[in-house]
């Protein structure tokens, strides 16, 4: 490789937010890297690390309220920061193209896929509409999309999420750009879909010798596709090296923590052999008004001190099951027994005591907490509602719960807006605990959080279980989490339970075929994992 291969050189890039008083916080500080033709660099880090800001800056674009304050971004010998708005526009698409996280949100719902995929070459005057259409069909074929000739006539809502994500890659490739910026392109997908999409992206990059910037928070994913990896934190570079080196011999402490095998071990609460299980679900079915059966004949048992994981892809009915147990969605048939006592299907028919014993923690702490209430209101409400305590007693109890959550007592008069994502999730847990429940349903409680923050939440939940003996019903799509914290697991597929039992047994051969597919789809932190999976599936 010689220096002529260099397509992009980012030199001491600095991006800053602007607020009313002028300069705001620095989002990206002193970041430099070069990219050669056919090379893939992975940008990795937690949210707020500045990954997306760097990716967008490579298109000469900043989001509202941000500005590139320093450094150079040299694309094929031309500093794009010195270009006129028209010059930057000419670069976007034909020079550097962007692939976003959520294809569903990034495609215009009112335009066909052909219109949107052909837009870059046609609007930039590079091809006629007919020629662009031929290119699109070729890309659809390359990306293994069904019926490539007619695929583009559909609207975004008419194709699946995995197909749409590949269509977005086709849209980015339509004018044969020199650089592709992938921004968390598989994060919104189910694990089984992620494998296919990842393989399609890799094939595309290899065949067209396109350089790429691959942004993700998942080291295992980036390991499959990147030559180089740059680890970022708070807008600054932590470490930069070959993928091999970062994975095998991380130098920085932060990288070591990211790479390190996640918390292990399992300390179950000593379980008293109780006759009656805490929660027992038998043959439950439920559906929404759409007449679609969402869960169909599900049976499950949770005992004191259990952590039962419910796993499956989006649409498998996991969250609906939680809604049925809590009574938010009345079941159609089947039984839900709590300590041997039949719970009425609808929440409104349940007694206060029945409600108190089952609490819930949600996926999005941002949405689940009222932004106008203080933590005293939020956590104190169940204390007052279920136990009828006085104001002073409520305050005392809330302080105690905050201490249990490792949150400062001074937070009691704050509102959720002043807290970080991890802290908000702790408030969600405190609110659930305030009712002193026997069972807590955790609905994807770590999936909206960064990896290391999520780990801390899991550790906290584990500690609380050891101290208080609460049982958890843990809804998740992350099999890594399941293996580490659940002693029992239920695998759901299209509303039915296809496998269930002790985690060790369900996750060991002989597998149910779907369990095996799920397990084999979880990316592993070695660069040859994707090749192995694809080879194995091709052999089958």
């Amino acid at each position, binding site marked *: 490789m010689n220096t002529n291969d260099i397509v992009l050189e980012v030199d001491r890039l600095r991006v800053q937010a602007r607020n009313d008083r002028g300069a705001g916080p620095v989002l990206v500080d002193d970041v430099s890297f070069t990219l050669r033709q056919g090379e893939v660099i992975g940008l990795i880090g937690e949210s707020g690390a500045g990954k997306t800001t760097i990716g967008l800056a490579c298109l000469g674009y900043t989001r509202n309220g941000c500005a590139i304050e320093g450094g150079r971004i040299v694309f094929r010998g031309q500093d794009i920061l010195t270009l006129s708005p028209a010059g930057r526009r000419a670069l976007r698409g034909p020079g550097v*193209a962007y692939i976003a996280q959520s294809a569903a949100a990034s495609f215009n719902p*009112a335009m066909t896929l052909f219109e949107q995929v052909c837009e870059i070459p046609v609007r930039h005057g590079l091809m006629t509409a007919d020629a662009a259409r031929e290119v699109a069909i070729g890309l659809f074929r390359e990306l293994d999309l069904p019926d490539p000739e007619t695929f583009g006539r559909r609207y975004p*809502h008419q194709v699946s999420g995995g197909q749409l994500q590949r269509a977005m890659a086709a849209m980015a490739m339509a004018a044969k750009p020199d650089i592709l910026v992938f921004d968390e392109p598989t994060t919104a997908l189910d694990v089984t879909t992620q494998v296919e999409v990842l393989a399609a992206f890799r094939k595309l990059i290899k065949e067209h010798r396109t350089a790429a910037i691959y942004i993700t928070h998942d080291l295992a994913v980036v390991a499959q596709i990147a030559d180089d990896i740059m680890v970022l934190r708070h807008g600054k570079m932590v470490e930069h090296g070959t993928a091999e080196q970062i994975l095998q011999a991380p130098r920085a402490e932060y990288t070591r923590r990211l790479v390190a095998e996640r918390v292990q071990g399992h300390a179950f609460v000593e379980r008293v052999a109780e006759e009656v299980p805490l929660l027992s679900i038998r043959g439950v079915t439920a559906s929404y008004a759409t007449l679609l059966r969402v869960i169909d004949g599900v049976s499950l048992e949770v005992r004191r001190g259990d952590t039962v994981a419910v796993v499956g892809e989006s649409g498998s009915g996991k969250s609906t099951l939680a809604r049925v147990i809590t009574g938010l969605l009345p079941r159609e048939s089947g039984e839900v027994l709590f300590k041997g006592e039949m719970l009425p299907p609808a929440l409104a028919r349940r007694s206060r005591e029945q409600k108190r014993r089952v609490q819930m923690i949600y996926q999005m702490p941002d949405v689940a907490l009222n932004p106008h209430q203080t933590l005293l209101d939020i956590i104190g409400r169940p204390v007052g509602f279920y136990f009828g305590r006085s104001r002073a007693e409520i305050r005392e109890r809330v302080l105690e719960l905050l201490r249990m959550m490792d949150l400062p007592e001074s937070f009691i008069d704050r509102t959720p807006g002043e807290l970080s994502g991890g802290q908000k999730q702790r408030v969600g847990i405190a609110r659930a605990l305030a009712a002193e429940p026997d069972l807590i349903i955790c609905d994807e409680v770590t999936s909206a959080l960064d990896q290391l923050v999520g780990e801390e939440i899991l550790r906290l939940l584990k500690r609380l279980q050891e101290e208080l003996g609460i049982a958890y019903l843990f809804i998740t799509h992350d099999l890594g989490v399941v293996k580490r914290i659940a002693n029992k697991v239920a695998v759901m597929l299209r509303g039915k339970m296809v496998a269930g039992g002790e985690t060790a047994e369900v996750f060991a051969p002989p597998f149910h075929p779907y369990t095996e597919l799920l397990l084999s789809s979880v990316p592993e932190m070695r660069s040859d994992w994707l090749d192995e999976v694809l080879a194995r599936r091709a052999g089958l």
Partner: protein
Amino acid sequence: MLRMIGLRLALGVMTLFGASVLIFAGTEILPGDLASALLQNNATPENLATMREQLGLDRPAVVRYAAWFGGALQGDLGRSLASERPVAGELAPRLRNTLFLAVYAAAIAVPLAIALGLMAAVWQGSVFDRGVNMVTLMTISIPEYLVGYLLMKYISVELGWLPTLANVTDDTALGERFYLTLLPMLTLVLVVIAHMMRMTRASVLAIMASPYIEMAFLKGIPKWIVVVRHAFPNALAPVISVVALNLAYLIVGVVVVEAVFVYPGLGQLMVDAVSKHDVPVVQACGLLFSSAFILLNMLADIAAILANPRLRHPR
């Protein structure tokens, strides 16, 4: 989707039925009935009773309503008390005039409002944006009769460019009509433009915050194409309903403007009929106005359904 449209049509018919009941009941509770209005000073109790029998007013209200609405559905709106001619014949030329003015104003106002709204969205925050916003806000804040009189004073009286009155007759030639109604048309345009323009701007700007708009910018597409091709089709639904409301206003709400310019439209006819206690004409006008209102809103809802790609192209 056909089911939704069918449902909407059924709902429209039901609303029209409800409106007809209200109109009938409304004229029913007015003091004095048809008989006393006709007889005026000759209204001795005997005369009244005879008259009521002749007119069928002694029948129960429900039966009279059925006869009236049934007749209306077949185009028979009864006879006017003032002229004693069929109401339908009285109404037809007036309706033509009102529709002419409404279509004339709409043909200018709707495209102009949408174009201005889109331009304000493209140049959001610019002098143009603020200027258009301020001017339209002003025209919507001034009562329409004042707008009419102001235009009349400056354009007709001081400059002498246009006639002050729009007194068209049945034999006025088409070109002459356009000329005579230019001023009332302008008044109406100024009154309805602000609402539509502001809704276009606001709903386009709301869409501009979507990820797929950022995506369009990242594809290097010029801003005005992003606004017109990417944002506007997704912003249509609220714009359509506001356009329909304003079109309805152009038919139903022009009474004041017709009075200012002495334009022989439906609104004037209704005002005259009310002052003359000409109940059949009032009822017929009410029925026509509510039909126009219901029809336009129904069309708007159906257009909004058709504008939704998810409904137009199911999975």
